[in-house]
């Protein structure tokens, strides 16, 4: 029944990628100049792809909705980037990074892709250093490493708490150089609203110029979507305000399958929610778990005293503290993977031991580390994070433990892609968080940066070339073809439809409603009845949105309300697909926790017999239930086990 071919190369996992590279078709330099590639999104995956493809000699058009490519949300990644360099001599290797990633993803990722990711991880560090990324160093002048969750080695490279920023600025500078060389054209403040398909292949996009409101047509021989994740379905998340799913959702409606939409990462260490008008949640890097210990009070009377300000956290005696991660998972302690840490925090708070005004927070305490290492060392490692916390919460984390709570952070799901990172639409490639490929049901910390840059610097330059090799005689496409007419007409009609609702409520009202439903029923813990209810409620929000949304201003001008409306309309539809997928997956794995399926200790209980597959959903019409296609997962190099972090 499956129409999916993952195109994993034959042979042992360790030689798949090199044998792939040895056998692909190439395009000679004079022909590369005749081939156009559109890259949508300029985060780590998009900027590194644009820079690398431009350097090869392809003609690239790079699009972003921000006012500069440098502002894509990769910039906000804090903690670090993994690479299996084994600089620390602590037993790391390509195989071990591969193994940790598969295990961390709870055996729901593809072996071939993940091995390749681990294999190129070292080159990413080399490349970034050459581009001037000022990674942290030791006094001897060598690169420094720290540890991250889900690993027993120190393989994470970092630039203070701004690793994403520095890596993105590296890729952005490389892309800027290609702009000056004339190989990349940069289109800022542009939002992609449709993908144009000609004879079964992606050949262009329709984009709205966000300054003039004009609808533009752009053609190319291949299209790359690197538009990030869809965590903003939940309204409150650690994503940027503009992060959206519109590009991948339009592609889904044009025939690209959506892989594992329900796989969402709830990050354990974020600043707790403070009020109704909050617009986003701020992450406190996982790297803090290197030196911070997570705890809640053991006794209910202490919880009460704390909540009524009769006591300070430091007044609670050591024996009355429950370091629940260290208690439950002695081998990994505070460095268990994110899904495990998040659920453990929720478990304690649900049991009534949460702290803070709302009872939805736990402590992340640095007192021991400050005693052991001194304040200045902690400041050097995490200074900017501590400052950020103090600005938001108005409390000094050097003196009082931080309060944290899980929040939506990353989406492992995304458009289904094969080994070439091509979706089920020919010529439509998907990179970085926008695809589903490498993290299975849970992503390990410091692996998102690795994947984005792996896709852009080292995978797409090969796989796109392989795809384009037989198209060197295809002339540049004109944008007056009927397929462009049709696509633009649809885009115009939808924008007009949004305006024509002329309702009474602003867009945010519906987005908040959707977010509440998603968090309640499709969040950290899910169950059958809740998911069914969510689907009903989401449909109600959708109906109300199209009846009552109000958009001010005009079409042909800067209009952020119109932009938001289009994005929220897509989020509502995607939210429903997430619930459908979560309902279908009758097992718990990684970040997807179905309450019906757990071990007696409350750990996720997988069902490998029935669900060891990628769920790739196929769109067949607006009011029709999407069709489920299954890509079975096969493990040859790794023995499948229950995850154990004890």
């Amino acid at each position, binding site marked *: 029944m499956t129409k999916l071919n993952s195109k994993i190369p034959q042979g042992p996992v360790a030689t798949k990628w090199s044998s792939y590279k040895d056998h692909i078709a190439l395009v000679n330099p004079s022909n590369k100049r005749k081939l156009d590639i559109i890259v949508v999104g300029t985060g780590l995956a998009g900027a590194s792809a644009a820079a690398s493809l431009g350097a090869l000699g392809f003609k690239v058009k790079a699009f972003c909705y*921000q006012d500069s490519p440098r502002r894509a949300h990769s910039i906000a990644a804090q903690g670090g980037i993994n690479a299996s360099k084994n600089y620390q001599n602590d037993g790391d290797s390509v195989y071990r990074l591969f193994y940790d990633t598969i295990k961390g993803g709870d055996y729901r990722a593809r072996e071939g892709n993940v091995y390749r990711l681990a294999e190129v991880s070292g080159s990413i560090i080399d*490349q970034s250093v*050459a581009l*001037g990324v000022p990674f942290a160093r030791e006094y001897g002048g060598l690169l420094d490493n720290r540890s991250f969750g889900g690993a027993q080695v120190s393989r994470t490279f970092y630039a203070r708490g701004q690793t994403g920023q520095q890596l993105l600025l590296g890729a952005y500078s490389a892309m800027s150089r290609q702009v000056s060389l004339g190989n990349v054209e*940069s289109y800022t403040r542009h939002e992609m609203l449709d993908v144009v398909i000609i004879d079964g292949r992606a050949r262009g996009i329709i984009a709205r110029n966000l300054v003039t409101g004009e609808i533009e047509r752009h053609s190319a021989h291949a299209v790359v979507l690197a538009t990030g994740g869809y965590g903003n379905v939940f309204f409150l998340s650690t994503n940027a305000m503009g992060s959206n799913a519109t590009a991948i959702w339009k592609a889904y409606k044009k025939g690209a399958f959506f892989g594992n939409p329900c796989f969402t990462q709830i990050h354990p260490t974020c600043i707790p929610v403070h009020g109704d008008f909050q617009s986003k949640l701020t992450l406190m890097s996982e790297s803090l778990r290197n030196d911070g210990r997570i705890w809640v009070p053991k006794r209910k009377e202490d919880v009460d005293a704390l909540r009524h300000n009769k006591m300070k956290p430091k007044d609670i005696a050591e024996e009355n503290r429950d370091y629940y991660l260290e208690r439950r998972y002695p081998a990994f302690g505070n460095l268990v993977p994110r899904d495990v840490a998040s659920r453990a925090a929720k478990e304690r708070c649900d049991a009534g031991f949460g702290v803070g005004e709302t009872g939805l927070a736990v402590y992340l305490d640095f007192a021991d580390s400050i005693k052991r290492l001194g304040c200045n060392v902690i400041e050097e490692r995490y200074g900017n994070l501590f400052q950020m916390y103090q600005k938001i919460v108005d409390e000094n984390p050097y003196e009082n433990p931080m309060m944290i709570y899980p929040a939506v952070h990353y989406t492992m799901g995304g458009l289904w892609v094969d080994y070439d990172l091509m979706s089920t639409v020919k010529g439509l490639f998907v990179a970085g968080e926008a695809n589903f490929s490498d993290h299975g049901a849970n992503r390990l910390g410091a692996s998102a940066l690795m994947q984005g840059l792996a896709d852009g610097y080292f995978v797409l330059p090969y796989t796109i070339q392989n795809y384009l090799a037989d198209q060197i005689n295809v002339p540049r496409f004109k944008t007056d073809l009927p397929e462009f007419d049709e696509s633009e007409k649809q885009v115009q009609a939808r924008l007009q439809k949004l305006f024509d609702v002329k309702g009474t409520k602003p867009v*945010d009202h519906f987005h908040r409603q959707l977010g509440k439903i998603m968090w309640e029923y499709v969040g950290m813990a899910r169950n059958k009845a809740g998911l069914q209810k969510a689907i009903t409620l989401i449909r109600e929000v959708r109906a109300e949105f199209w009846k009552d949304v109000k958009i001010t201003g005009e079409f042909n001008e800067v209009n952020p309300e119109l932009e938001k409306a289009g994005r929220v309309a897509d989020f509502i539809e995607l939210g429903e697909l997430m619930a459908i997928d979560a309902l279908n997956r009758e097992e718990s794995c990684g970040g997807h926790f179905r309450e019906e399926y757990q071990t007696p200790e409350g750990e996720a209980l997988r069902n490998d017999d029935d669900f060891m597959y990628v769920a790739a959903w196929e769109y067949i019409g607006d009011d029709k239930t999407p069709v489920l296609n299954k890509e079975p997962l096969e493990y040859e190099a790794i023995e499948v086990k229950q995850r154990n972090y004890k």
Partner: protein
Amino acid sequence: MDFTLKIWRQKNAKAKGKFVTYKINGISDSSSFLEMLDVFNDQQVTKGEDPVVFDHDCREGICGTCSLYINGRPHGPDDAVTTCQLHMRKFKDGDTIVIEPWRSKAFPVIRDLMVDRQAFDKIIQAGGFISVNTGGIPDANAILIPKQNADSSMDAAACIGCGACVAACKNASAMLFVAAKVSHFALLPQGKAEATRRVQAMVAKMDELGFGNCTNTGACEAECPKEISIENIARMNREFLGAKIGSQKKVVKEGGF
């Protein structure tokens, strides 16, 4: 908390702008400044009036998108934060708050509080990079970098490109922005190879785009949300002079320079 807002409204780049006064009530003191504007905009939309347009994205002080001149200071009255990290508890109940866009010839207003900062991208395109292609790179530990140099380079590289330095400067100079990028690379061995070309190309582009000169007032450093030091300007001047005197060749237009 209740506030009176005096906000710069301007329909588009060509229209004449003006201040419009509004009232807003019931704002939580733990709200961020931009969340206050969100509430304001929701009210505007509900009333059927145009919401105020402002740039913002990550809301955690790192993307550099948000701007705003608040009560005469870029990013408002708090130190070392961006507008998205500014909280209403920094204001007093009943305050009048004046909100303007960045003011600089090189950053024309697009609408209301939103400005065009493409000039910064153009400066980077002129030379704010190291000319290496993807692949074929030696091992990352092949070249040792003293920790102090890596740290100072990181201090400069922390710039988020928001433009507060330009907005704060009476000359609308982009010296701090350019100097931060020049220093970031000049302090690393990887950046040395083309240091002389880089500084000349970036400075020439900065002048061409209409930014003013530096008169050592130091407002840029005082208002920088990332506390980038004006030492970087001194370093850039040294690099620039050295390049001018020391360079044998003309700045060749090649590889982007």
